[in-house]
């Protein structure tokens, strides 16, 4: 099998995206749209066909040297191994389905070419992150997904709110990118290369303090892209974009790039105990934070956005607990069910005639039973219903945290368990508010196009059956993903079967408890006044206000000071003063030019006298 075919995986979407960007609006709509779907589908197919290359040590192929300057060598090099192959397959498959869905969703948009070009470009950038064997190439993809995310959030840019949301996402993730950039430069100065394989292989020789600092820098970069505390404020606002964008970028793929980065560099990251603990703490804190926020949200997509943040927090917790396989497992199942939930939410909004507020919905089960069942499948996975994909993957993470058996990790495990309860609660709140009972408002929805509903079916099956990917030995499974990842899988938690059953029982009880509480509270829901706590959660713990008070306003004040105080007063003042001084001096000097002959003659005579006097003095006093 020709290994250089691997390059087609990212280049196919790039080519289709470029074609759409250049000629999209001149081509017939059907051609343009098929190009977009075909690009993603081609990648998925290729990844599937080339799968055997990933076994063993994986395959590395080099296309050409991108940058060459002194010792800096940046080859365009792909690494198709046991970690990148499943990730690439997930990205390309999910994006194919989302492209299909987008065909129906964007049916009435005039500038669909821009949308599909950016969507394909995003897939290219994401696959570059996943497959790259060079950190600089990875950074290229990293920035590429950031740009596509910015452009797609602001797709309906004629509304200032959307454009601002795009800008916010771009700027906040940029803060994280700075950390990543510093980490890359540091790694280069340490190793003289940016090759991921080399960095991972040689990481052991570094002193502990350097490793910890590097891990924290990488964590900072991952936090920005994955919307973890404290760089999480952009994700809820990112929901201003079209729903396929939310599903693809802000749920299934891009936000997991941070987790993937940490997994990719796990051999380096795992050498630092402190770094791992920091990753786990950030993950658990974000999981809890986002789950509480999701409890109070009123816009359907914002609930899902916060739940994404919370689930990505779980993945961070898994990496922090040293289990890459648990993180990747949850990443994969989460991608399936969260893409499903987002696209189903898009259908819901479509059915509700553009209404976003779940307090105004209700009774949608009667309108589209199929949609209800699909949404239910996603909700069961998210809430962790027993035997669904989300149940196994989330439990794997909690098990990994529990098996660490240190006070810190036990606390984090506790937070994780509590968050699991909150997850079930907000998921079923969403489900009951949207689908149960009678409509609370007269909604004039549109019929759902077929391309919007059918891509959800494979996702629902993948989500529900996702547990089979890594079925624990307890249920007769073989932990396939864990063994497939092999040396890359990280630690495997060693616990007794009894304990494992106990944890499963606890998870099931929490799921049931959350679902029952939600049923009791929200089955016959009447919108009422919202209390202070609810408003606090609704505003995401007022994180935006906090950022504004701590960073934006001081920054604006400093900027104002430098504008008015330094630039206007100091620099302009000095220059204006100099100019005024010279002008005044010139005015005074001007009066010397009287234009009278006698004055000039007198001056000449005095000048002569002075000269002669000078020579006389020189003669008299040698």
């Amino acid at each position, binding site marked *: 099998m020709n290994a250089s075919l691997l390059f087609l995986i990212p280049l196919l979407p790039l080519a289709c995206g470029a074609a759409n960007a250049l000629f999209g609006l001149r081509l017939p709509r059907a051609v343009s749209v098929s190009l977009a779907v075909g690009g993603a589908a081609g990648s998925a197919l290729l990844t599937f066909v080339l799968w055997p290359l990933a076994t063993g040590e994986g395959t590395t192929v080099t296309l050409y040297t991108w940058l060459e300057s002194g010792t800096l060598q940046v080859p365009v090099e792909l690494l198709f191994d046991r970690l990148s192959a499943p990730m690439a397959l997930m990205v390309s498959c999910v994006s194919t389905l989302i492209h299909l869905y987008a065909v129906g969703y964007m049916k009435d948009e005039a500038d669909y070419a821009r949308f599909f070009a950016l969507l394909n470009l995003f897939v290219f950038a994401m696959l570059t992150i996943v497959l790259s064997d060079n950190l600089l190439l990875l950074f290229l993809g990293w920035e590429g997904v950031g740009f596509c995310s910015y452009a797609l959030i602001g797709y309906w840019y004629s509304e200032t709110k959307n454009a601002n949301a795009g800008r916010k996402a771009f700027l906040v993730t940029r803060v994280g990118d700075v950390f990543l950039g510093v980490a890359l430069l540091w790694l280069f100065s340490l190793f003289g290369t940016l090759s991921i394989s080399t960095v991972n292989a040689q990481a052991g020789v570094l002193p502990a303090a350097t490793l910890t600092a590097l891990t924290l820098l990488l964590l900072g970069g991952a936090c920005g892209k994955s919307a973890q505390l404290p760089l999480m404020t952009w994700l809820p606002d990112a929901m201003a974009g079209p729903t396929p964008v939310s599903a693809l970028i802000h749920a299934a793929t891009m936000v997991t790039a941070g987790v993937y980065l940490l997994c990719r560099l796990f051999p380096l990251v795992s050498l630092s105990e402190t770094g791992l603990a920091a990753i786990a703490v950030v993950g658990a804190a974000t999981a809890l934070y986002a789950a509480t926020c999701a409890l109070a949200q009123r816009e359907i997509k914002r609930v899902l956005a916060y739940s994404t943040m919370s689930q990505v927090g779980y993945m961070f917790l898994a990496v922090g607990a040293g289990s890459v396989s648990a993180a990747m497992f949850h990443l994969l199942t989460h991608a399936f069910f969260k893409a499903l939930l987002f696209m189903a939410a898009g259908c819901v909004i479509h059915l509700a005639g553009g209404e976003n507020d779940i307090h105004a919905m209700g009774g949608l089960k009667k309108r589209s039973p199929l949609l209800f069942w699909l949404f239910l499948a996603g909700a069961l996975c998210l809430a962790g219903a027993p035997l669904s994909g989300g149940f196994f993957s989330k439990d794997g993470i909690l098990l990994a945290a529990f098996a660490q058996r240190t006070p810190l990790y036990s606390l984090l495990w506790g937070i994780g368990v509590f968050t699991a309860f909150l997850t079930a609660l907000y998921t079923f709140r969403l489900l009951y508010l949207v689908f149960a009972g009678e409509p609370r408002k007269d909604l004039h929805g549109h019929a759902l196009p077929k391309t919007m509903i059918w891509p959800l079916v494979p996702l629902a099956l993948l989500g529900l059956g996702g547990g089979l990917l890594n079925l624990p030995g307890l249920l007769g499974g073989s932990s396939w993903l864990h063994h497939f990842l092999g040396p890359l899988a990280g630690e495997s938690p060693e616990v007794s079967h009894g304990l494992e059953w106990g944890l499963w029982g606890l998870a099931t009880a929490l799921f049931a408890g959350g679902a029952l509480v939600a049923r009791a509270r929200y089955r016959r829901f009447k919108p009422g006044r919202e209390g202070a706590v609810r408003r606090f959660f609704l505003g995401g713990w007022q994180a935006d206000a906090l950022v504004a008070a701590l960073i934006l306003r001081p920054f604006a004040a400093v900027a104002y000071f430098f504008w008015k105080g330094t630039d206007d007063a100091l620099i302009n003042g000095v220059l204006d003063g100099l100019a005024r001084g010279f002008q005044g001096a010139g005015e005074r000097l*001007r*009066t*010397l*030019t*009287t*234009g*009278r*002959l*006698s004055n000039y*003659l*007198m001056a000449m*005579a005095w000048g002569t006298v002075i000269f002669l006097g000078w020579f006389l003095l020189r003669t008299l006093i040698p």
Partner: protein
Amino acid sequence: MIVPMGHILAFSAALFLMGLACVLARRNLIMILIGVEIMLNAVGLTLVGASALWQAIDGQIFVIFLMAMTSAEVAISLAMVVYLSRRRGTITANDFDGMKG
């Protein structure tokens, strides 16, 4: 030499200073020109004296040049004075301050 060189120098210096005083003190253009003439003649006297002192002819030749130049200068200046007096009706130097800054 019959007249000592010191006397010649003292006399020509006095003549020069008187010419200069005339140039500086008077406001009438014709009087200023006369002052300039006196100063030039003072210089000419020095040159003749020096020529006699060193028994060299150069000084006297130079005085011939000086006279030619002076006559040319007077011709031009007086023509300009006549022109100015016709055009502006005055020959007082301070009335011509068109170059005032």
